[in-house]
């Protein structure tokens, strides 16, 4: 028999024992391992078990089962000709609260960790209570009188845990004479549950807001969210480290996946985080001294962040990026030279909202109303190709497209021709 629980049907689990093999646990030590599985289940949702099992079938089964346990009803299964595919399906407008936060609440711990945690904060129950190591030791023993066998914690274990809590800012120590005294830190009383329910969904590293909400009595959120991308939740730790590096004006060494999903390492100076609210991607904009250029890196491709030395010239590189922003449509710097792009749309009577739409949706450049029925957008940008998806949204009205990069115009027209073929437009028009 084994320690490995097997799911026989939903909610029915048998604990089996097996001499060899590691016991299955819902909790995990390393978040990176689960990150790509969750992303694939949420974003793609069509991959079958065979697509994941190149490395280890057992690893896939364990990760799938963990995610299923965390996310419950958000998980779905479908039997296809390629095998059973697992997906996470969430309608962000109906789902209350980001379910991917649950993954961040699955960190494993030892029996000693949890026991010590509750003992320490029961002993140091208010900031005024200051205890020596001996008093804490005594307090731990006192709190195990119910049990036949007391768990023994040596001084170095307790000291290590207290040091960990000092680093987290929840315990502080001070020296009084020759004695070191420990106490819990003061904590601001924040009871803005509405603000937490809102910002945990839309602010960067929103999962931290969810941790704060866990401290409050559960309540129904008054908010819903449209166009709500939550995939970046899985990159919260990476983002947090990058914010820390930006705050300290430090370089970072990043381990990044390239297009072929092979890891490589770069050292760069983080300047700003660019966020798309139209696809949920987050990008690090950073300066590479090696290439003397600013470039973007998708956060979901970053595996790890190691903070390095302080860069004295941070402000000047950030200023350079801010100067470039007025000519950036997205995040691409292209070849570093600006391209001119313009297009003209024609509206009929009653379609004035198209002009308003252009004004509202443009990220840079200008919109000029040429006459009652036509308006033109034009801009100087580093990568005109980034505008193509937006220009396509005006299909049915585009009368002119010009760009200093001829390839963009040609590709746009070729794509349009392909769309006509795809829907049988030209054939029908000829008939």
């Amino acid at each position: 028999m084994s320690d490995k629980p097997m799911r026989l049907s939903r909610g029915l689990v048998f604990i089996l024992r097996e001499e060899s093999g590691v016991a299955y646990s819902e909790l995990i030590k390393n978040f990176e391992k689960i990150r790509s599985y969750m992303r694939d289940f949420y974003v793609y949702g069509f991959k079958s078990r065979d697509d994941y099992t190149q490395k280890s079938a057992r690893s896939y089964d364990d990760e799938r089962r963990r995610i299923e346990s965390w996310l419950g009803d958000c998980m779905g299964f479908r039997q296809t000709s390629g095998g059973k595919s697992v997906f996470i399906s969430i309608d962000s407008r109906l789902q209350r609260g980001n379910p991917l936060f649950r993954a961040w609440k699955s960190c494993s711990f030892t029996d000693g960790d949890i026991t010590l945690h509750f003992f320490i904060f029961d002993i140091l129950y208010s900031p005024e209570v200051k205890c020596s190591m001996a008093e804490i030791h005594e307090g731990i023993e006192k709190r195990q009188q119910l049990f036949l066998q007391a768990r023994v914690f040596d001084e170095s274990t307790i000291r290590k845990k207290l040091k960990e809590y000092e680093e987290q800012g929840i315990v502080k120590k001070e020296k009084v004479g020759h004695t070191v005294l420990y106490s819990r830190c003061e904590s601001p009383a924040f009871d803005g549950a509405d603000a937490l329910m809102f910002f945990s969904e839309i602010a960067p590293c929103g999962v931290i807001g969810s941790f704060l909400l866990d401290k409050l009595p559960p309540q129904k959120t008054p908010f819903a969210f449209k166009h709500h991308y939550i995939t970046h939740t899985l990159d919260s730790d990476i983002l947090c480290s990058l914010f820390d590096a930006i705050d300290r004006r430090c370089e970072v060494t990043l381990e990044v996946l390239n297009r072929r999903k092979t890891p490589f390492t770069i050292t760069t100076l983080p300047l700003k985080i660019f966020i798309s609210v139209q696809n949920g991607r987050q990008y690090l904009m950073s300066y590479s001294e090696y290439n003397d250029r600013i470039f973007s890196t998708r956060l979901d491709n970053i595996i790890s962040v190691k903070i390095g030395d302080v860069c004295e010239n941070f402000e000047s590189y950030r200023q350079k990026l801010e100067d470039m922003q007025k000519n950036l449509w997205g995040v691409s710097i292209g070849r570093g030279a600006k391209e001119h792009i313009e297009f003209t749309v024609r509206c009929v009577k009653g379609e004035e909202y198209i002009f308003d739409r252009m004004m509202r949706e443009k990220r840079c450049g200008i919109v000029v109303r040429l006459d009652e029925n036509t308006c033109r957008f034009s801009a100087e940008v580093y990568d005109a190709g980034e505008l193509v998806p937006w220009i396509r949204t005006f299909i049915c009205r585009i009368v002119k497209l010009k760009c200093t990069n001829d390839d963009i115009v040609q590709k746009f027209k070729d794509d349009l021709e392909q769309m006509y073929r795809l829907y049988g437009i030209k054939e029908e028009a000829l008939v």
Partner: protein
Amino acid sequence: MIFSELYGTYYNAVAKILTAAVERDVPLAQMREIIRSAAFEESVFEIEPAITSQRWNLISKDGKTDIERKPTMPLTNLQKRWLKAISLDKRIKLFDVKFDGLEDVQPLFRPEDIYVFDSFSDGDDYENEQYVKNFRVALDAVKNNYPIKIKYTDRRGFASFIAARPLRLEYSEKDDKFRLYISGSRGMSTINLGRAQSCERLAENVSFTEKKTAPVSKTVTIELVNERNALERVMLHFAHFEKQAERIDDTHYRLTITYDSDDENEMIIRFLSFGPFVKVVQPQRFAELIKDRLYRQLDCGL
């Protein structure tokens, strides 16, 4: 930094059991109930044995504890830094909150550390006092389930009144706007909060009718071809919908998306933005809407 057992579901569940046990013995059934509501689906199979086999020495088999007070933990540096960061957000003014005790805390990020590059430029005015007042009335009404009277500017620019029960406040980061879902005499509808001139609680003696309706959902099926990384772009772009995806062959995929019928025009332009990599296949009515636009484009003579 973020991934720590301190914020974990198990610590929270155990804290809840201890909170109950400090007051009176917690029977096993109650323990299980707390775990089920506070933790993951299978957590009961890990937490319960840890308690009953006395691996943690926090609660005895019969639900007693030597812990003396209800468990609490101060805010960590990370939590304080995040709170400080949101205190600097322009939208915080919508909420009547104070951030006492965070004066010396470094924010985790500042507004200038972030750049949202594709939100629309005509977002709501969070500096406007009347807007903030309207938001707070609407929020309170949603939470406490009472009807309100809204004076608003309609699409033609005229002032109108409506009496309705606010159901929820919906925020779109892309639009940077709040919409209020309301239930009134014409059923469920929405109103852009930015259009509201005033919101006030409806006097109790004012009669108010409410017709119960539900939003209408529709589905659309597209086929996509994985060229120029279209698969990832499309899947990410439509990630926030309830959807089903399947692989047709090595380069073709089918995606069925459930959307709100009010958003049909938006869906059309979102599909068009992917050019020839996305084709609407079902329903035929939707495909005709795309074709109509393409016919009109053909006439533009580009």
